[in-house]
């Protein structure tokens, strides 16, 4: 892998901005204030114009010709170097938020700044500083894989002399280094998505936006993409990603904003968000016999909200991690049962989402 050119330059972003001034790690690079988006009422005949309003594709179909309120006064602050997730079901407003921050959706009211430039008034400045990976790969199919990167760089005015090397280094990094001269169609879905990331990185943006990057990918391709994103984040790049996969947000993001129907419901680290989830950790003890005799005493263990027997399995919901485990084992032993396995299921964002909205995510 050729790491000598271009890519190295991306490493220093957390420490300093591109103009060399030190940037405090917690300085916001993205800020939205009372961000609101209303898609105008669809005039009957204009409804099926092919493309639905950007980001509203999956919004609940309006009863007739009502306007769609996609965002209701969203306040967000995203820090430099952060891996930030926007989590919510389809139609929540995630893609609209991303659309506004990437200048493709006009905000209705409120304001947003991205890397120091004001969205709506300095769109060209915003675009120069961001890289965007779309939900569905949209490479330029009339060009080769490599040309996709080279022309993208040219659209950003990057000197030709550095382009070829940088393109190859990025292709290598994405694991498609030997596919550069082929047609885009010959790449698999996962490879095309990685090509989109490579393209978005060609102009070394300060912030990388990804819109549901793993939708439609098989599990292996998804994991490969996660590795790429983690790697980019480790090198200091600010990453903003939308997703409706709990696991994805949980595994990748440092902070997650949970959005539903245009409202911000919760915003914190995945760990702290999960702590807010009711029921807490699920502890399962696999016993060597019927668990029922142990259930009653297990329910009295301090920190355990509820305990139940399910065949040979003793289930306990505890507010905090595994602190209750020794006491639960004693309960089992007092009931004359041996413990041969323990399973611990940490609280999930899924449970939190259900408790916040009363609905499941998918």
């Amino acid at each position, binding site marked *: 892998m050729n790491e000598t050119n271009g890519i190295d330059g991306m490493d220093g972003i957390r420490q300093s901005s591109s103009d060399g001034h030190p940037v405090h790690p917690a300085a916001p*690079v993205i800020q939205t204030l009372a961000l609101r988006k209303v898609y105008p009422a669809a005039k009957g005949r204009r409804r*099926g114009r*092919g493309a639905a309003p950007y980001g509203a594709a999956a919004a609940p179909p309006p009863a007739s010709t009502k306007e769609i309120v996609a965002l209701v006064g969203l306040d967000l602050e995203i820090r430099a170097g952060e891996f930030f997730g926007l989590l919510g079901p389809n139609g929540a407003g995630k893609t609209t938020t991303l659309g506004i921050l990437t200048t*493709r959706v006009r905000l209705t009211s409120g304001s947003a700044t991205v890397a120091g430039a004001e969205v709506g008034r300095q769109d060209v400045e915003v675009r120069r500083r961001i890289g*965007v990976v779309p939900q569905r790969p949209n490479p*330029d199919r009339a*060009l080769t894989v490599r040309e996709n990167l080279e022309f993208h760089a040219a659209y*950003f005015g990057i000197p030709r002399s550095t382009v070829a090397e940088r393109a190859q280094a990025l292709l290598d990094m994405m694991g498609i280094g030997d596919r550069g001269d082929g047609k885009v169609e010959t790449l698999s879905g996962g490879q095309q998505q990685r090509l989109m990331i490579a393209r978005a990185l060609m102009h070394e943006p300060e912030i990388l936006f990804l819109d549901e990057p793993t939708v439609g990918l098989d599990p292996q391709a998804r994991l490969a993409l996660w590795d790429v994103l983690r790697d980019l984040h480790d090198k200091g790049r600010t990453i903003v990603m939308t997703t409706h996969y709990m696991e994805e947000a949980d595994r990748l993001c440092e902070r997650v904003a949970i959005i539903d129907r245009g409202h911000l419901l919760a915003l914190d680290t995945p760990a702290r968000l999960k702590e807010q989830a009711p029921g807490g950790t699920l502890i399962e003890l696999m016993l060597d016999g019927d668990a029922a005799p142990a259930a009653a005493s297990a329910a009295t263990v301090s920190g355990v909200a509820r305990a139940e027997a399910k065949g040979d399995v003793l289930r306990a919901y505890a507010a905090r991690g595994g602190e209750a485990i020794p006491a639960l084992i004693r309960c089992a032993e007092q009931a004359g049962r041996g413990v041969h396995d323990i399973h611990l299921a940490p609280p999930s964002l899924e449970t939190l989402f259900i408790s916040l909205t009363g609905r499941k995510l998918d």
Partner: protein
Amino acid sequence: MTATAVARVSPLKVFGALLERDFRVARRQLPYFLVRTTLQPLLFVIVFGSLLPKMGFVSHDYTAALLPGILGISLAFASLQSVALPMVADFGFTNEIEDRLLAPVSDKLVALEKVVSGALQGVLSAVFVLPMARLIMGPIDALALSHPLEVLAVTILGSASFSALGLLLGTVIQGQQIGLMFSIIVAPMIMFGCAYYPWTGLNAVPALKYAVLINPLVYVSEGLRAALTPALPHMNMLAVIGALATLTVVFWYLGLGTFRRRAFS
């Protein structure tokens, strides 16, 4: 962190890169492009400019009236299609244009580049058809190549007007309506574009004579007639230039509006 931290990008350079992209693609698809845009006009040349005169159904003099019109149709077809077809696909389903819409330049520049590139492809198509048509039709007595600048001016302005019209149609029409666009807009435009007959011929049907004046092809055909076969009846060159310039500007502004509506929501 300030908004001026990153080096500014020269819009001219970006425009050049956008144009280069279109030309790399056009060059790769050149045979396909020429067949798509010039086969129909050339078939018409074969039938009306060669077969029918040989059969004696039309006089050979007709070729002089036909040649400028055929050039006009070719450039109109090429310019319109070069812009409209990719636009319909881009905004309808592929969304490929997004990488250009996210380039650090004004969206106006992206639209303008499409129009310029479409117009250049129209000129290319006319340059290809002129010798081919002349070859098929045989010698044309009335053909005079003494006004190259006028030919060039009408070719460029005509291509620009159809290219701008392509921007408008390509951002208004949906994918499944493309066939309809050719039946309802392009076909009548060609038949009533004074390509197969001089405008003065429409004296026979006065209402039609004035109705066709909204059709840019009328001015292209008549302008090329004025420049290439001045012995035949034709419109005044200044009127042609004025009309084409006006239509280009009108189509451009309408097209830019609809382009923006599709590009941003």
